[in-house]
């Protein structure tokens, strides 16, 4: 103990200076602990908590994103399949409709052709009749002029008949 006392005396340690230095350090310690360190540590803790929360949220969002992607792919696949089906259906319907229209057009065309044929036949018949009639009257007129006499009813009928037979052959 004596050695220590002597040592401290040699190094200029005495109570007032020692107490002054100790109190000054205690002031620093108490102020820093109360006002600086605690608030910094709380802030660091708060930041750590937020980072942790952020990481958890990021994980959650990542998971949700993965799920969304799966759902999106599923929906896309379904939509693709549905669209394919719709296209197939539309194509079949279009084909059916086209066939129907073609059939109807063919039928219409056939009807038109039949009508036309019929009309042509009638016209032809009528024209033939007209030609016949014109030819007969031409024959009668020509015969009258050549013979120089007016043909009676019987002559005319005979000539008509002969001309008709000649035209028919």
């Amino acid at each position, binding site marked *: 103990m004596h050695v*220590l006392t002597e*040592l*401290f005396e*040699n*190094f*200029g*340690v*005495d109570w*007032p*200076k*020692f*107490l*002054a*230095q*100790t109190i*000054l*350090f*205690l*002031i*620093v*310690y108490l*102020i*820093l*602990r109360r*006002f*600086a*360190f*605690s*608030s*910094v*540590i709380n*802030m*660091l803790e*708060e*930041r750590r908590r*937020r980072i942790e929360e952020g990481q958890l949220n990021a994980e959650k969002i990542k998971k949700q994103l993965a799920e969304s992607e799966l759902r999106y792919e599923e929906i896309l696949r379904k939509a693709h399949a549905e669209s394919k089906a719709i296209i197939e259906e539309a194509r079949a319907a279009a084909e059916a409709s086209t066939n129907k229209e073609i059939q109807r057009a063919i039928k219409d065309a056939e009807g038109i052709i039949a009508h036309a044929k019929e009309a042509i036949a009638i016209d032809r018949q009528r024209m033939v009749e007209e030609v016949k009639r014109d030819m007969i009257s031409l024959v009668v007129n020509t015969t009258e002029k050549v013979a120089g006499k007016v043909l009676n009813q019987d002559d005319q009928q005979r000539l008509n008949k002969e001309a008709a037979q000649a035209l028919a052959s």
Partner: protein
Amino acid sequence: MSLFTLAAAVPIEAEPILTKLHGFFGLLASMTNSILVSIILVVTLVTWAQRATRRMQLIPGPDQNFFECIVEGLYGFFEGIVGHHMIAKSFGLLASLFLYIVAANWFGLLPGVGSIGWHEHEEFIPLLRPTTADMNTTIGLAIVFMVFWLIWTLQEMGFVSFLKHIFGVKGGLKGFMAIALMPIFFFVGIIEVVSILIRPVSLSLRLFGNVFAGENLLTTMMSLGHTLHFPLWLAHLCSVLLPIPFYFLELLIGVLQAFVFALLCAVYLNLSTSHDEVEAENH
């Protein structure tokens, strides 16, 4: 003679700076240049901490960021030594010790510290002296720590466990072996008590010795030209150039000594509050 002169470049005691005050103000007569530096340090550290933590924000500004960086670094460092269970209690003291010692050591490197002063009775009295180059400061720091160490150790372990920790038979020995070795462990306990009592002295002397030696080294280098009777121009040149490498050394030693002091305090705390041994014995 020359070597002795070099070694005694700075007096070992802090010099009183208000010796001429009398009456009521005579109480301030014990005010030394190192106490003045301590007051400056208290104001500086408190102002700095107050500025940095005045408006704490999640996204910190430069001051807050720098302060947080230091606090976070020290917190992680000390937590690794004293353990999670003790860090909340002890961090304030350990970090304060570190910051105070670093600030005190580096303050001594500022121009004017130790070199601006006056002459009294043909003796130079510097206005400012690094506070850790005064044994009153270092022993004060060590004793403050030891008081808190004792309180926290007793809180953590309890008085009986603390005595068992020091004097008890260690290594999980039981039965005859434990009884046979009891005197030896009791003797080891006495050595342990002596080592605990020596801790404040070793802590304070180590810090004081290093800083005081640094101060002496710098002062010696500054005055080497004059001591060796160089021409005046060369002596002035030497007083500027020679200390420069030692300033870098002192910068390093300043932070290193602060780390050593705080680290040893943390280790002492860990040794007395660690539950490893008790848990190992229970298992």
